[in-house]
């Protein structure tokens, strides 16, 4: 099913809900796939940091390890 977009004509104030064109649909699919990849990487990074924080809390990892992971994750090391 085609997705809709809302366009508000500022000249008249009229809002219209119209289907995405085929090209717009393709562009949106491409963008959403790229975003999904970003979200997955973000979630993975967050999970790794949370796991390290848990290990620090129970004494099985050090704060230095978390800092080192952070340096890797931001590309500083």
């Amino acid at each position, binding site marked *: 099913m085609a997705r*809709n977009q*809302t*366009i*508000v*004509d500022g*000249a008249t*104030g009229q*809002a219209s809900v119209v289907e995405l064109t085929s090209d717009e649909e393709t562009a949106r699919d491409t963008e959403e796939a790229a975003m999904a990849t970003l*979200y997955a990487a973000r979630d993975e990074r967050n999970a790794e940091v949370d796991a390290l924080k848990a290990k620090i809390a129970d004494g099985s990892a050090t704060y230095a390890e978390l800092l080192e992971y952070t340096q890797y994750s931001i590309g500083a090391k």
Partner: protein
Amino acid sequence: MGWTFYDSSGRKLNTASTLIDNLDIANATDIGADIVDADLFIIDDGAGGTNRKTAASRIKTYANPGASGGSSLVLIGTTDCSSTSSVTITGLSTTYDAYLWVMSGLVPADDGVDFTIRMGDSSGIDSGSTDYSYIISNFNDSTASHENTSYNSSVNRIAAATAGIGNGAVEGFSLVGWVHVPVDSGHPPYMFGNFQFEYTNGQHRAGTVFGRRNHSITLDRVLCSFGTGNIASGRVSLWGLAHG
């Protein structure tokens, strides 16, 4: 012989000074239509006891100085969102130097998404890979320190709220921002805004976003959407700020 006048309750009217409480408004016939500029009101000029008529148009001007050319916000467009992938508002022009952009209670269909802002001209919304730059400063209610800064100088959108916006019962995203220098030749269009949202775990997060279309364009439209999925609900509105 002089005339004697009585109101509908049988009270005598004093032609020299008829008190306002002699008027029986409650039993009058309703106008039955919206008030228009030509309708008349009674007004005590300067509270000096001299009653005059005044057109409704004068009240409109008094209450809203912008109607006669002063500074005010003029609604360009507004819409209630319902399962839409994006909201584009057109009609930006040289009429105004700045536009107030309000996104209120936008709830994403997908959980954990971020937010996208774009600009465009008469040929459409721009989404080239180097069209925008942005800076975001993020905070949350669970740490005293600044959460993070996100930035990009050459990208296909202005990203706001790069963390995951939740779509639970009390979650969603709101932003109050300004689009400024929209069509000043030689200057790129800018926008900035303060946003708040509920993270996927219900945490309250907030921040400020500064965005720029990297090249000067004749801006006539703006777009907002979530990074993926639809805007399930919420309202988007845009006003122009009139010159003083």
